């Protein structure tokens, strides 16, 4: 199956700037999600996703096309930016996992009445479910954020970005076997961290 992003990159290299715009639109949401889940912070995620696109644009001539090259290239650049960000943040202090919870319409002071008043007709978005959903997301994001970087990164690439093991091993420059065992290890760690949440719900 030909990779559309890879085709678009070839067009960019031939001077078609608009092809890059299409690449951005196809990849911006996954990229921001990847960075936000990895850092546990959606505000820094947008900034770093933009930085990733700018870096890609600047070194577009160095891109070597090939099967599934684009996603590995993009996540490789983004991963390095994230690692730098975490290193810098380590010097500044810790961050809060609570920031990442997706709650666009309601502030932290929302009462149950507010939730009912703004509840859409969709059953899955009604207040009880919404609070539950928020709690669940918080538990999972906390568990992810507690994983060491070397386990967190491949886990997110596999289970949230849905990359193949081959793509992940290329992105992280790890042998395939190491990649597989590290992802299994990461999932086992996640299971242990979510134990109390799963057993209480």
């Amino acid at each position, binding site marked *: 199956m030909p990779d559309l992003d890879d085709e678009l990159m070839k067009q960019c290299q031939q001077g078609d700037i608009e092809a*890059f715009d299409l690449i951005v639109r196809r990849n911006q949401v996954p990229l921001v999600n990847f960075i936000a889940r990895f850092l546990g912070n959606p505000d820094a995620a947008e900034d770093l996703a933009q930085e990733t696109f700018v870096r890609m644009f600047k070194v577009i001539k160095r891109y070597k096309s090939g099967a599934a090259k684009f996603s590995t290239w993009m996540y490789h650049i983004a991963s390095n930016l994230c690692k730098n960000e975490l290193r810098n943040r380590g010097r500044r202090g810790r961050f809060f996992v609570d920031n990442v919870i997706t709650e666009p319409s309601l502030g932290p002071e929302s009462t149950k009445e507010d939730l009912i008043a703004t509840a859409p007709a969709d059953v899955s978005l009604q207040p009880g479910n919404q609070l539950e959903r928020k709690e669940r997301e918080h538990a999972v994001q906390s568990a992810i954020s507690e994983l060491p970087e070397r386990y967190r990164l491949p886990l997110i690439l596999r289970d949230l970005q849905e990359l193949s093991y081959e793509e992940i091993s290329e992105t992280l420059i790890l042998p395939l076997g190491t990649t597989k065992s590290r992802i299994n290890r990461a999932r086992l760690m996640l299971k242990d961290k979510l134990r109390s949440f799963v057993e209480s719900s």
Partner: protein
Amino acid sequence: MNCLKAEEQFSAYLEDELDYQAVKAFEAHLSPCESCRREFALFRESLDLLHQLPQIELSTEFDIALQVRLADAQVEPIPFWQRVLRPLHGQTRLALSGIAVLLVMVAGTYLYQRALVKPKSVEITVAPETSRRVPFAEGRRVQWRRQQFPLAVPSREPQSLVNFPESSAFDLQPVRRSQQPQRLEQNYILQTINYTEAPTGGGL
């Protein structure tokens, strides 16, 4: 198969990456092992939770902010002085350029003279007139030599030397390397070796 080995194959079993023999062995361990069955169930549940994480939507500013940054990346960075001068026109620009040139010359002169007055870290031997005639040098050469010099020396400005042709600057050589560890800024100075009167192999 023990529990530890079974645990190592949780992902491979779930993702159908085991061969027939391995599947048989895995299942043969799990069916009597209550602990592994429980852990495997929890493993699947936590993976489901992970896969159910909601997608984070982009803020409305994302697109425009990215366009600005990409546009910046496309434009070659303009030097500071061009950015300042660009909006100005005709005589104003000319006048400002004149003032700038003057300022540079004045500053250069000042720094140069200051360097002559107090050369702090340089050990200078004033060469006697005779020693300037190097008997066995092969000809006139100009060499770039790495030397220790105070920061104030206008190192790469031969023009400022030209302004003072009568100065003693040309007599300040050879310059010997200071014996202290080279901690100060390294600069390049133009060192002129005078040509000799000794016969050469037709090099001149």
